[in-house]
């Protein structure tokens, strides 16, 4: 690669008491790339997301942002760098409309009075750019379908113009059609040059949009695959630990382990 990855993790470890949740985890994401993060329950996916988003900082390890060493100790640090996270619970205000949710915490006002017209205009523009179909940006979020809510949550995270987007199980609650809309959105974002880390259980989703798949098993890297050249069985056996770990060793070999 000619330029460094936008986000690189090296030797990231985290323990909760005696439990090693993450051990020397490596991960790299480049701009315009979708990396899927997969693993069994308890493999450490959520812990890794929390470490990147600053909610639960890692105990040790190095995080590089565009080739520079950075510290992520608080959610604010991650946001300041340009890392946006959409959690599984979405955390939306059901009573506010789409515009209100998009601009929550970053309202536009003129002399202290909310500029609803400008916010609505930008919200419509954003929805159009991302080809998100919702009945009306003035509808309360409570009235939207699960897929529409997910799309709104993602667009809200884009308000800060991030470079890396973490999506935690975005399709878990969605039906087939909604899922396909969401995957379209993820591709759209990738084409806009965003680096996307997609946490998912669903092999279909991963095959559809991911460029690479990083497997976690028992808190450790257990393989990094190119989606186009790897069979589904190979990935699954890597998740369950049934695979011979040669692939894992081969792909992580050139990345220095943290001492």
């Amino acid at each position, binding site marked *: 690669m000619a330029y460094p990855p936008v986000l690189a993790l090296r030797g990231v470890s985290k323990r909760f008491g005696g439990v090693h949740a993450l051990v020397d985890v490596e991960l790299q994401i480049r701009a315009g790339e979708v990396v899927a993060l997969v693993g069994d329950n308890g493999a450490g996916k959520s812990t890794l997301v929390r470490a990147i988003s600053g909610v639960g900082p890692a105990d040790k390890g190095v995080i590089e942002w565009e080739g520079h060493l950075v510290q992520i100790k608080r*959610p604010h640090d991650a946001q300041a760098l340009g890392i946006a996270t959409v959690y599984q*619970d979405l*955390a*939306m*205000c*059901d*009573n*506010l409309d789409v515009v*209100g*949710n998009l601009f*929550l*915490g*970053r*309202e536009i*006002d003129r002399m*202290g*009075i*909310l500029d*609803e*017209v*400008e916010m*609505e*205009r930008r919200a*419509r*523009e954003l*929805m*159009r750019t991302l080809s998100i*179909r*919702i*009945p*009306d940006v*003035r*509808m*309360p979020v*409570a*009235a939207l*379908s699960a897929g529409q809510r997910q799309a709104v949550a993602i667009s809200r995270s884009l308000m800060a113009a991030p470079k890396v987007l973490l999506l935690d199980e975005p399709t878990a609650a969605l039906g087939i059609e909604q899922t396909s809309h969401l995957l379209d959105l993820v591709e759209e974002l990738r084409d806009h040059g965003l680096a996307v880390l997609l946490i998912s259980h669903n092999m279909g989703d991963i095959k559809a949009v991911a460029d690479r798949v990083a497997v976690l098993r028992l808190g450790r890297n257990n393989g990094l695959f190119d989606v186009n050249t790897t069979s589904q069985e190979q990935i699954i056996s890597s998740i369950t630990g049934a695979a011979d770990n040669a692939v894992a060793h081969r792909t992580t070999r050139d990345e220095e382990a943290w001492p």
Partner: protein
Amino acid sequence: MDAVSATSGRHPRTRGRNMNLRGYADAFRARLRLGERGPILVALGLVVIWLVFQSLDDNFLSPRNLSNLSVDIVGTGLVAVGIVFVLLIGEIDLSVGSVSGLAGAAFAVLNVNLGMPEWLALIVAMLSGMAVGAVHGFFFAWVGVPAFVVTLAGLLAWNGLTLFLLGASGTISLDEEGLVASLTSSYFGAAAAAYGLAALGIAAYFLVSHRNRNRHKAAGMPHRSLSEIWVRTGVLALIALAAAYTLNQFQGLPLALLIFLTIIVASDYILRRTRYGRRVYALGGGIEAARRAGVGVARVRILMFMVSGTLAAIGGLFVASGLTSASPTTARAAGSGMLLINAIAAAVIGGTSLFGGRGSTWSALLGVLVIESIASGMALLGVQDAVQFMITGGVLLAAVTADTLSRRSAGARDRA
């Protein structure tokens, strides 16, 4: 432009530019489903109540009775406005009745017994309400004690303090000509006052709607049609001018009503049009979302209890003004919870949700009109307290049930 047609063409509930009657009906039904029962239903209920009482007693809709009603609602109404603030963040303040009693007693003791100037005693009484709210807010937001327990303790404790303050002197009569007494006894007799206020409200509503429409239109977004704005303004004008006419048939525009309306308009504006207000609604809609968006949850919570305490104190001063006295009897009545229940009932009947995030301070006006109309009508008919209590309780239960059901159906849609 094309985005507009792209969305409104596909979805019937969009606020489109060429909405026909069916579109409005659909939009209305959608709003009902979402738990915004709409002030229209409550207003219809109010009309029914008025017609029933008028048919039972010719004096009910007389200018004199309606004018008195417009003054009587203010004490409870202001307490209800405070309750709305707390309900919006999904909490409850059970102490407001006691706090209103405390403010009245504090004013009476300071002014009459200790000779403090009226304006200063008034400010101290209001600040006492704010301080009480701050104490509740601290225990709730910082210590983490559930709000209903904190304020339940407050209900008893502040009522105790009120009785303690009044204990030495018993009933204290306020100066009949004084500042506080004049709060409920002053009228702007000139006909121009009531009509002027009505005209001001109508003009402001029209101009704001019109300007909003033009800005939406200029930005190429869906906007209300001019005819819709005219119809809405017309309905508002009808109500405002009828009210002004009725008030002028008696003694003119009551000062108390003017203060009440001013506080409602100002608080509604702050809640809906500023970032501070947006944070209040956000907190009621989802604590986690609000926190992640950078809302200072503890700060907003404490502030809401301070607002509620302050408005309870102001409401208490209007109650004391109406009685021109502060007495242990009324203090005990305040502590017994009638004012509290009426205020909560008013807020909920008016359309503010007990579950947070939905409602406006206008609901305090609408709800308190319903509550006090029932009370006033039954007083005219000579119905005994016992029956009145049962009816008010029934109305409160009905309002809360409607709130719960609408929330449940909205939630069911949400999970579907």
